[in-house]
């Protein structure tokens, strides 16, 4: 088998969904007309000074705590100096050796195996403007000019750096997806990959299996979906193994993923461009976060996706149901939790939520209808099926009535005449009637023709307008005949 082991680390950039930018009061917008959310600070005009958005720092700590990081009691901003047209100050305000969050981890499941991915750091910085390369279909190398939109310039950006703990493209994808879900759960970013509000870069190297020393790493950029992230890393691993097996050496560089070609491509980079000459940002004072603030933010954390999956498992849901329910709409998960808290069976409730309830929601979405369901409704529905008051098909009909706002399951079942008859007296009377009219059938049944029983059950069901509990009809019939 394979004699090479891939070693992968992921860098994630998350745009925070604060109202205003990181160091000025311009609104955080997406898709607006270019340069309509800019001011002297985010345009880098001379003399403009940054002032830190306190909410963004709290949200960074929120992310850090969700990733089990230590929150530094003291941290500072640095200037990262480089020249690029979308960085108007010629430096990006970032953090260097004293970031806000350090030393965390995230547990992810890939290929049925749980792995703990170390988080080296998570720090605060500002986003750059957006460049649009003109000429030859937007291609960088053939561009005749570059257009700049600074609406994104200065948007709060959190960089999360993993340790090189990932060993396959599939693991890297699982990590990226779980991290995205976590950030979305925290409510600090809309985390939309297609809008660039969460972006992933990968550091990939390979080494001979069971060696410790890391190989030369290559950074991959331009992966615009989870699928392209997995493909890009897989293709880069293969490329590096190919180079090494041909006796060559991997060059440390940044490579772009080309979705159409299905391969990474080396980028033209200027020598010395990575000499960022970090120094402390003199325009900003340090950040201090006392333990009391850290604890307040920690207490405020919602249930995290990994914890929730674990809890669902403990409720008796199998891994498939855990996955489907975890991926369900948060409102539906809340309905599930409420129903279970009211004593409804977790597995049955989960099946309803991920099955029929989701189906009704999807249909309603398509027809733009308003539907809703409360936890108490689901609990009542599950209970009524268990008690035999509703057949499972009647329960589906009751559910659609409930979700259309017709009332509680019991009210809908009564109004729509769905309640199953479980009254032994009523059913008994119907049976007697049927038996009296079918003397010949009884003889055949007594003679061993079992299928006749089905016929008789059918007759009784018809006599009760289809509302008798079929199980009860069956039992009572047998009692009377034998």
């Amino acid at each position, binding site marked *: 088998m394979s004699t090479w082991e891939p070693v992968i680390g992921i860098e994630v950039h998350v745009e925070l969904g*604060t*109202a*205003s930018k990181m160091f*000025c*009061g*311009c*609104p955080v917008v997406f898709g607006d*007309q*270019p*340069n*309509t*959310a*800019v*001011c*002297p600070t985010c345009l880098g005009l001379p003399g403009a000074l940054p*002032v*830190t*958005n*306190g*909410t*963004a*720092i709290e949200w960074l700590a929120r992310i850090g705590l969700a990733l089990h990081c230590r929150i530094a009691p*003291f941290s*500072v901003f640095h200037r990262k*100096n480089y*020249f*690029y*047209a*979308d960085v108007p100050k010629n430096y990006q305000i970032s953090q260097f050796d*004293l970031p806000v969050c350090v030393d965390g981890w995230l547990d992810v499941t890939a290929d049925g195996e749980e792995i703990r991915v170390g988080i080296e750091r998570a720090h605060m910085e500002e986003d750059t403007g957006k*460049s649009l*390369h*003109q*000429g030859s279909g937007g291609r*960088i*190398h053939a*561009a*005749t*000019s*570059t*257009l*700049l*939109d600074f609406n994104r310039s200065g948007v709060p950006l959190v960089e999360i750096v993993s340790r090189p703990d990932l060993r396959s493209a599939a693991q890297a994808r699982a990590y990226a997806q779980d991290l995205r879900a976590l950030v979305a759960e925290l409510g600090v970013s809309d985390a939309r990959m297609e809008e660039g509000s969460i972006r992933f870069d990968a550091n990939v190297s390979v080494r001979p299996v069971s060696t410790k020393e890391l190989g030369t790493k290559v950074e991959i950029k331009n992966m615009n979906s989870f699928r392209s992230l997995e493909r890009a890393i897989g293709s880069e691993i293969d490329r590096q193994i190919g180079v090494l097996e041909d006796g060559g050496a991997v060059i440390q560089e*940044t490579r*772009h993923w080309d979705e159409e070609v299905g391969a990474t491509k080396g*980028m*033209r*980079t*200027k020598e*010395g*461009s990575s*000499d960022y*000459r970090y120094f*402390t940002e*003199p325009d*900003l*004072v*340090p*950040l*201090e976060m006392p333990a009391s603030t850290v604890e307040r933010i920690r207490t405020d954390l919602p249930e995290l996706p990994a914890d929730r999956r674990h809890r669902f498992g403990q409720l008796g849901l199998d891994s498939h149901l855990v996955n489907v329910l975890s991926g369900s709409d948060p409102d539906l998960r809340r309905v599930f939790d409420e129903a279970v808290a009211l004593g409804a069976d977790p597995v049955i409730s989960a099946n309803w939520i991920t099955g029929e309830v989701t189906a009704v929601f999807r249909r309603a979405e398509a027809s733009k209808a308003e539907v809703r369901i409360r936890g108490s409704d689901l609990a009542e529905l599950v209970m009524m099926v268990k008690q035999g008051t509703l057949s499972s098909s009647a329960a589906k009909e009751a559910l659609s009535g409930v979700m259309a706002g017709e009332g509680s399951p019991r009210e809908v079942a009564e109004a729509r005449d769905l309640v199953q008859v479980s009254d032994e007296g009523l059913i008994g009377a119907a049976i007697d009637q049927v038996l009296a009219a079918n003397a010949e059938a009884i003889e055949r049944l007594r003679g061993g023709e079992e299928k006749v029983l089905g016929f008789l059950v059918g007759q009784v069901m018809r006599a009760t307008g289809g509302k008798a509990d079929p199980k009860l009809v069956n039992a009572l019939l047998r009692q009377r005949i034998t």
Partner: protein
Amino acid sequence: MPIEIDIAHVARLARLALTPDELDRYRSQLAVILDHAARVQAVDTTGLAPTAHPLGLSNVFRPDEVRPPLDVDEVLSQAPSARDGYFEVPPALEGA
């Protein structure tokens, strides 16, 4: 001890096109500054916390509130070149 300065590299990082004469002149001027920095660095600072900022303040925050941005026409009127609401600059190489 004289400090080795790759003055051409420093100039390149700062995007300065310097003549050989200028390179020589700035190399010697920069050497004086670095010399001074070396003397500061030689001071024994054991047990002293690094100074992150001379003001001695921390946590100067602004509330997360939006303030009106500038008018786009006014913004672009300052630019040497603009097109369709964008600033326009010579083609930029990625990662340059």
